[in-house]
């Protein structure tokens, strides 16, 4: 019985709300406009944040989530940089040593990198990231060669001057030419192209690495051509955990092995860092979270203004319909029925604003995507927008509806 009454009250509220909107089209449109602007502002902020996050994730998709990276420096420095600057670099010998210790329990791949200018015939490409690596590169990262093949073990052992180029490098240097078995210059050394990596996409993420603008060469050749065995070597070691669950244990093991290798006493701090994608993602999310929060704070002011507009209109609406409220009360409408009626009306105005706002936001998102920066409108954003719109309506309608519900029926009936 209660359920039925509520259903009937709601049904009547729907009828009244749409009747009122139909009767006051211009007013309804203007009120809705305030909500539309607010919703568009909020959604656009969220889509922008969402787009950035997706691009970030995409651009690091080739970096395995189950891989630990041993490096001299932490990827994200949250305290003082000077605490780290005097650390000794990890050299190639240490890396080989560690690899031996880990044999059988985890795959370790040492890499070195630097920037070099490259050239093929008359085509030049400056500042390309050169990565000295081994055949195990394919085991620790998700990227695979699309054309040709990757570096083989004997090429690492015998310092062969071969290279596997990223897709942007292929486009930049070779254009339409088939790059396989072509000779190209990296720095002053000539390398033979044996493969092209598949496109990673994502592009350069705000100064982050562009994984398509890279060239892989055997690490031994890297040392020979650019590192110099006794020069400043700075090797990173990627270690792939057997599973993501085993990463914690692996991290302890790596710390232990590295300390042993470096002969650190128990009181001494580590002079190396174990990095993982999580730390990077975490740091990014922190920054992103703050940006999103500030953005939402600012944009929600416009939504608030829209809500005030709705509240204002609801007060007007209740004053206009005072007599009608009196009639309804006289024939048996309870206070909560009247309350529901006006709450519903406010919610409908805002929901309408929300829906129109979403449609406009979809357009704005496309425009931003095309011109400014990545933006992505997801289902959850749509859902949040609708919930927010309706909540704004309910909040804005609360006080006016309450006032309507409490009207004295006699005075309301007498109202002209």
């Amino acid at each position, binding site marked *: 019985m209660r359920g039925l009454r509520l259903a009937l009250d709601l049904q009547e509220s729907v009828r009244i709300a749409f009747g009122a909107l139909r009767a006051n089209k211009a007013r309804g449109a203007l009120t809705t406009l305030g909500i539309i602007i607010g919703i568009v502002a909020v959604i656009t902020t969220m889509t922008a944040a969402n787009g950035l996050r997706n691009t970030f994730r995409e651009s690091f998709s080739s970096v395995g989530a189950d891989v630990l990276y041993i490096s001299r420096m932490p990827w994200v420095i949250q305290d003082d940089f000077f605490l780290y600057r005097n650390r000794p670099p990890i050299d190639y010998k240490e890396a080989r040593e560690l690899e031996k210790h880990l044999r059988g329990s985890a795959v370790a791949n040492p890499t070195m990198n630097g920037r070099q200018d490259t050239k093929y015939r008359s085509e030049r490409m400056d500042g390309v990231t050169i990565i000295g690596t081994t055949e195990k590169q394919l085991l620790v990262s998700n990227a695979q060669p699309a054309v040709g093949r990757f570096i083989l073990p004997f090429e690492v052992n015998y310092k062969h001057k071969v290279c596997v180029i990223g897709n942007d490098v292929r486009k930049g240097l070779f254009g339409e030419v088939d790059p396989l078995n072509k000779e190209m210059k990296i720095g002053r050394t000539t390398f033979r192209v044996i493969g092209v990596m598949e496109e990673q996409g994502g592009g350069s993420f705000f100064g982050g690495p562009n994984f398509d603008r890279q060239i892989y060469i055997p690490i031994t050749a890297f040392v020979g051509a650019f590192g110099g065995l006794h020069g400043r070597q700075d090797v990173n070691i990627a270690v792939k955990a057997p599973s993501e669950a085993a990463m914690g244990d692996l991290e302890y093991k790596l710390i232990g092995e590295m300390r042993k290798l470096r002969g650190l006493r128990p009181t001494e701090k580590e002079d190396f860092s174990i990095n993982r994608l999580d730390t990077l993602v975490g740091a990014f999310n922190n920054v992103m979270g703050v940006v999103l929060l500030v953005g939402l704070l600012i944009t929600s002011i416009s939504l608030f203004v829209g809500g005030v507009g709705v509240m204002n209109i609801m007060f007007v609406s209740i004053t206009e319909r005072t007599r009608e409220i009196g009639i309804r009360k006289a*024939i048996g409408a309870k206070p909560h029925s009247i309350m529901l009626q006006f709450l519903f009306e406010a919610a409908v105005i805002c929901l309408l604003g929300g829906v129109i706002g979403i449609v406009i936001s979809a357009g704005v998102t496309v425009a931003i995507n095309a011109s400014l920066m990545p933006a992505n409108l997801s289902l959850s954003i749509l859902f949040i927008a609708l919930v927010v719109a309706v909540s704004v309506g309910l909040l804005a309608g609360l006080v006016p509806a309450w006032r309507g519900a409490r009207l004295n029926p006699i005075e309301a*009936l007498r109202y002209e």
Partner: protein
Amino acid sequence: MKAVTGNGNGVALALHDVEKTYVMGTEKVHALRGVSLQVRKNEYVAIMGPSGSGKSTLMNVIGCLDVPTKGNYTLEGQAVADMTQSELAEIRNLRIGFVFQTFNLIPRADVFHNVELPLIYGGVRSRERRERAESAIARVGLSDRMKHKPNELSGGQRQRVAIARAIVLNPSIILADEPTGNLDSRTGDEIMAIFDELHAAGHTIIVVTHEDYIADYASRSIRLKDGLVESDEAKGRKAMAGGLMS
């Protein structure tokens, strides 16, 4: 046609020493100063008096739109004084049918919806609602105006819609406040004829009026003056309840 009350005996409502005081700014207005009266079931009562006599206040109290400041009011055995707004609304919905001088229809709603409204607030299901609203509209002879808005109807027709709305939940008491005040005398007579029929069908009817010829329809007339009952007398009917409906 359902008769509302079985035999027309018994007490429909009783006021005992009812006072009503309004505070207007700093001044207290004593609208009712101790009214006691009883209305039996199926009685036809006219409440009369000059303006300011308290007849509107009395009607509001009887109609449960307002509660007395002092004194007791019982409606069909139920004390009204301590009821919440919700409970009062339910009583108004089920037990009382209002007919106002200014019709008080909802302007944007058509005839059918206006009549259907008390059923909605009473929690009646859609199909039953349709049947009962249509039969109430038929009873006042407006079946062919179902989809018309109030502003497409004449004054008499609007008052018929109001009557249909008042009787749709088959309340025991029909409370009419100057029901012919905005109508010409011929239309007024038609409306009063409907009240006669409703009286004959078993409803208790209370009409507030200042016109003697309207009061003549009633079988009892109560005169108020300065918030007190001045006279309360039964009298002969001008038109006997002959217009029984088929």
